[in-house]
């Protein structure tokens, strides 16, 4: 039973990967803005604002919070291309459970995003930005990246299922991928915002994801404290991971439902 699921899933993922690597710009374009932020804008802000080196590390992690939504949302475009000009009709008629069509795409999007994050972190480290990561810290960060990434892909898949054309999809990407980034403590702690926005930011999964990543890679629990106001950092990290995992589960389930209901109608 397990093999019957894994085998088509591997085939679908391989197919998506082959399509993706055929267009290298899909791999490179989402990297441009975060690398620009991490390597150019963060050092410039540090100089202009007379902050210390930790601010560069703060922003470097913040840029991961931009890379994940951008990359996952761009992955949603390929869903529309597949539906309008690709092989979706043939895939729907194939003896494959339809949720696997979504999961196959998700695996590739997650793998590529992981690769891009590794490039971004390596570029930041090469630029002289210091990370203080323990093994458990890396695991916290990975868990945050995976759950937040899965959640964003769910959102991308839902949007792709609801929007008929690529142009309309692209028009919605800034609202979904970029606006929350400004509110989620990417460039400054959420407490620096007006009280209402700081309160609102606590409901954004990206706020929890970024706080977890900073806790994991920088050993900085300030973001978690700004959200939960507790002293036990492990408990706060667990709670934030619970939030991102819950969003990931709900949005993945919703994306599968939207796809299976709207693919043929």
């Amino acid at each position, binding site marked *: 039973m397990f093999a019957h699921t894994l085998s088509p899933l591997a085939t679908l993922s391989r197919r998506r990967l082959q399509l993706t690597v055929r267009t290298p710009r899909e791999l490179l374009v989402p990297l441009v803005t975060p690398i620009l932020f991490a390597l150019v804008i963060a050092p410039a802000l540090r100089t202009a604002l007379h902050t210390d080196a930790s601010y560069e590390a703060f922003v470097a992690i913040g840029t991961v919070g931009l890379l994940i939504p951008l990359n996952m949302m761009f992955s949603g475009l390929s869903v529309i291309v597949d*539906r*309008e000009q690709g092989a*979706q*009709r*043939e895939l*729907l*008629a194939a003896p494959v459970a339809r949720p696997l069509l979504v999961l196959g795409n998700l695996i590739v999007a997650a793998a590529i995003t992981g690769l891009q994050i590794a490039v971004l972190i390596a570029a930041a480290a090469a630029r002289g930005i210091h990370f203080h990561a323990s093994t458990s810290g890396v695991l916290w960060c990975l868990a945050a990246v995976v759950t937040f990434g899965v959640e964003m892909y769910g959102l991308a898949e839902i949007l792709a299922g609801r929007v*008929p054309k690529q142009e309309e999809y692209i028009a919605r990407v800034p609202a979904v991928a970029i606006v929350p980034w400004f509110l989620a403590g990417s460039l400054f702690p959420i407490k620096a915002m007006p009280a209402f926005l700081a309160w609102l930011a606590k409901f954004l999964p990206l706020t929890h994801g970024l706080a977890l990543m900073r806790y994991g890679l920088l050993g900085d629990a300030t973001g978690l404290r700004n959200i939960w106001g507790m002293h036990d950092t492990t408990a706060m990290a667990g709670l934030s991971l619970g939030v991102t995992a819950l969003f990931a589960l709900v949005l993945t389930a919703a994306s599968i439902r939207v796809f*299976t*209901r*709207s*693919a*043929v*109608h």
Partner: protein
Amino acid sequence: MAIIHAGRIVALDTPAALRAALGRELLELKVDGDAAAALASLRARGIAQDDAFLVGSTVTVPLNGRTSTDAIAVVSELRLAAAVSSRPPTLDDVYLRLTGGRLAAAA
């Protein structure tokens, strides 16, 4: 041949009979704009019935005895499609027709 959808047998017949349920010919339209609206227009004009379905921007319309010439004339008149073709139904069409999410939910 049995077609199973969501754990239920939704069709059980010979391949020829299953294809025949969609008629001898169907029309396939590649729509440039809103495919759902195009399908609704075809239904309003009596060209498409409940067994028509769409995947992305492709509308598949079983003709159920109508001639493709008449149907294409209506499609041209309504300026619905960027490309139109007619062909005999395949088992893929049968499967998609029977396992479409909203169609299956309504059945």
